[in-house]
Every structure is written in C-alpha cells, then in structure tokens.
C-alpha cells in the first residue's frame, strides 16, 4: 500500500499544544513520525542573559505554562546554591505547598487531555472545573491564577494569608471525594481498559537511557522520583509513596507496563499522594520567617560558578543549569525540560506501529508540554 503523510498540528486537537508531528502512515499504521517544534520559541535563555537576577523570576514562569512553579523553584534553588544561602524552614514548607498544588493541577490537566483524546469529553468538563478550586487557592496565596511569581531566591514572596490552610484542607477533602467519580468516569471505564493497555510502549530496558523521567519513567517500573533521589524543599521530612508499575493498589494491572495505561494510572495515584503530602504539610508547617533578609535587589553580587538545581514536575525532571561570572546578570542559563526528550526523541521512537487513532492519546499520555521543549 502507498504511504501517505499526515500533519498532526500545529492547528490540531490531537496535538498537545502548539507543536507538530509529521506522521507517515501505511493504511492505518504509523510508519514514521517526526516532531517539529519551534512554534513557541521566545528565546528565554537569551532574554535571561539580559535581565538581572531578580527580574528573571518574573520571566521564567512562562517556560512551562501548565505548571509554572517548578521553574521558579529550580531557578531559585540554583541561585541559592551560587549565593550559598540556606532558606528558612517555613519557606521550604510553603514552597512544597505551591509545588504540590501545581502538581495536582498539572495532573488534572494531563488526565483531562488524555480523556479528551480518547473521546470521553465529560472528563475534561469535571476535572478542569475542579482544577479551578486549586487556581482559586493560588489566587488567594499569590494573586495570580496561572503565573504566580511567588517563589524567589531566598524564600517566598510573602507568608500564607489568614485562613489559607483551612481552605486548603477543605479543597483537599473535596478533591478526595471527587476521585471516586473520576475512577467511575475514566479509570474504571471500558473505553479506557480497551484503548490504553499496551499502547505506546517504551521499552523498559531503554527507558532510562532515553532520558525518560517523571511519571512516564515510573510507569516503566522504576520507583525514581526527584523528590526522593535528590530531595529538595520540605520533602525529606514528608512521608509519601512513589506509585509505580506494577504497584497500582486498588487498580488492576492491565498490560505490561510502560504503556498509556500505566502512565495515566500513575498520574491518578500521584494525585492521592499529593493530597497526602499537603495534609502532612498543614499539620507540620513550622512558624518563622518566610524569607531571608535579601540584599538590594538591583545589585545582587552572585559569585561566579556553576549550579544545577532540579525539581520533580508533573511531567518529569525539570532542571536549571545557572552559570554566573560574577556579574549583575546570569552569564548563561540552560533549562532542561522533561518534554524535551518525551516529545521529540521518545515520541519519534515509540510512534511506529501505532494506529492513527492511538497517536494523539499516546502524545497526551506522555504529557508533552511544547513550551519547555523550545523555550
């Protein structure tokens, strides 16, 4: 049969944002796929070399839009490494609150995107509606719904507002009560059972070598999480499990791992763990200052050197390599986004053999976020 070409994106409901997959198909089977990115290139790394250390904090949340806080956290940690700052305990806990809320909202978006791709349109209606409660929390805490610019080198911008923790507890209770409904709607749904297992399989022995991180790596059976292997913020003090294939608890283990099914179930279980972490933080959060006493923001003298900081985002390992030459601006910042490997390398490798109809769900199950590929 003759091969023909399909363009999935940039204007396409099956593309995870503004990116394009150039797909060659034979009949209904994908033969080859190529990822084209660059539609969202804003030259962050160049702009950061032109802005002062503190101005960059306002710029970087735009790198990963569904989950902007990981950028601020890892940039702040890298700058703190260069400055040799130890931030107060309370700031660490507040950072963990923000990062976990961001993870929850990232996972809710990822799950609703996947459900939309397999045709279950009720799921996005419910999950994104519930995500707005998290955004309301963010609004109360930081003043912004999407971009928060809350974590910065030295701590966080301000302390928790009155009654925030009580409201957080209420939202967590609500979210937990909704999880059962999500299960009925998607995770115990026949459509999901039929379409997800053994689709879009990453070979288990290659997963680490290919640079797969985050929930996608845990779906391959490795219990690796940056919160555990390279702990930061308040995570060393907190107790949580790392859901990974085949430890799915109450969920059936269908398929052989590394597939769309495991990736989505891992995300679903991580929501539970995030709720658990947040509840511990509400109980444990210490009193004290929320930030260090900062020097004059215009003239930060950051000692020359190299620093790398990484955090676990809902998509995988997010890291900042910050290089200073002692000047008022960073000399070079390199952003390591998790989608860089997932969207280009992994997707190109696992696409051959997929059905056309399974292509978009596979892309959504990897949770590719194009702005952190091209920055």
């Amino acid at each position, binding site marked *: 049969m003759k091969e023909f070409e399909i363009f999935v994106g940039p204007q396409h409901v099956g593309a995870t944002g503004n990116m394009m997959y150039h797909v060659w198909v034979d009949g209904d089977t994908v033969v080859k796929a190529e990822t084209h*990115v*660059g539609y969202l*290139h804003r*030259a962050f*790394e*160049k*702009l950061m*070399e*032109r802005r002062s250390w503190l101005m960059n904090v306002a710029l970087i949340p735009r790198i990963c839009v569904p989950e902007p806080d990981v950028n601020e956290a890892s940039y*702040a*940690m*890298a700058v*703190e*490494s*260069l400055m*040799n*700052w*130890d*931030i107060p305990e309370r700031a660490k806990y507040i950072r963990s609150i923000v990062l976990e809320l961001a993870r929850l909202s990232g996972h809710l978006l990822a799950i609703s995107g996947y459900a939309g791709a397999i045709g279950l349109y009720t799921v996005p209606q419910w999950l994104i509606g519930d995500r707005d409660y998290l955004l309301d929390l963010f609004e109360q805490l930081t003043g912004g719904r999407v971009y928060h610019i809350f974590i910065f080198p030295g701590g966080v911008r301000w302390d928790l507002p009155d009654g925030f923790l009580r409201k957080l507890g209420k939202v967590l209770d609500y979210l937990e009560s909704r999880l059962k409904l999500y299960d009925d709607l998607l995770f115990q749904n026949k459509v999901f059972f039929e379409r997800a297992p053994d689709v879009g399989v990453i070979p288990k022995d290659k997963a*680490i*070598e*290919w*640079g797969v*991180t985050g929930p996608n790596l845990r779906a391959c059976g*490795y219990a*690796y999480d940056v919160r555990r*292997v*390279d*702990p*930061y*913020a308040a995570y*060393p003090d907190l107790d949580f499990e790392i859901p990974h294939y085949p430890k799915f608890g109450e969920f059936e283990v269908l398929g052989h791992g590394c597939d769309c099914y495991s990736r989505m179930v891992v995300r679903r279980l991580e929501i539970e763990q995030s709720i658990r972490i947040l509840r511990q933080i509400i109980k444990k959060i210490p009193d004290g200052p929320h930030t260090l006493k900062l020097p004059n923001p215009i003239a930060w003298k950051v000692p020359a*050197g*190299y*620093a*790398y*900081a*990484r955090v676990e985002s809902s998509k995988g*390992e997010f*890291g900042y*390599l910050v*290089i200073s030459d002692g000047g008022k601006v960073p*000399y*070079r910042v*390199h952003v*390591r986004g998790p989608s*860089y*490997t997932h969207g*280009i*390398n992994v997707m190109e*490798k696992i696409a051959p053999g997929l059905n056309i109809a399974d292509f978009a769900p596979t892309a959504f199950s990897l949770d590719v976020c194009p702005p952190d590929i*091209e920055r």
Partner: protein
Amino acid sequence: MKAIEIFKELGIEYEEMKVKGNSTPRYRAKVEPDKLEEIIKKFKTQGFKHFVALSCVDWIKEGNMELIYHLFSYDTLEDVFLSIYLPRDEPKYKTLRHLFPQIETYEREVHEMFGVEFEGNDRLGEFILEDWNDMPPMRKDFDTVKYVKEKYESVPLVEGRGDKQ
C-alpha cells in the same frame, strides 16, 4: 561505583559544585575533547545511565565554546558535568548520539543556537527557528535588541482602525 573513584581511575581532576536546596553531590570536570567519548562510555557502564542535558556556553572573552555533558546516576545518586572546550571561531565536534539517543536533539539545538558543527549527525539543520537570516542567536555577540529594531519595528502599520493613535 562512585564518581570520585571513576575520576581517580581515569586520572581526571574534578571540582565539587555548591549545592543548596537539592542534596546530591555534583562534580564538574574539564576533559579533553578527543577523550570524552571514552570517558562517557566508562561512566555509562558504571551506572551513570541518565543523560540529563547537553548545554553550550559561549565564553566570548576566552574565545571558547564550552559543551557540558551532564550525566546522572540513579545508583549512587551523583551528578557529573563533563566540560569540553572548542575554539569559538570554528567550533566542531563529533556526534555522540550513538551513546544516548537524546544527544541527537541537543546537538540539533546547539548547532542551531550556537553554530557548533557535529560531524556524523545528519539531522542538523532547521529545528526551532524558521526563515532565520542572521548568525546563530544564542552567541554572545548577537545583539537581539538591534535585530528586533531592524526586523520588527521597521514594519509599517497598515491603514484602517489600527492606526488611530
């Protein structure tokens, strides 16, 4: 095997980077470009199986391009940054995509943004930019404000409702 032992075995000098926030140690070493492939292979067999990133730094005063190969080990929980320096006028290196497949993508980006040639990588070429007509933009001597003024601000307004200002 710990990174320090590997460095000692290979006779490479290393320095420890400062870490706050995260907790695993990070080591940085400068290596010779022609020995890099062997060194990465050695690290890979000793557990450093996660290739984190390939970054490029343009040291314009020194006249160098620094390529940083960043590896991580899930066994010993250590980061290793291996730097090589290339001449800035004609930066040229060989591709290492056979070691870790995602190096290919990083090489494409570094080629486009810094103008570093990677021999043996056949996918270099347009990757992120389109219709680009200037020097590689991430180089330090590329003036982005001047470029913006010339390219975008000189475009005239079209008549109609938009120009009532």
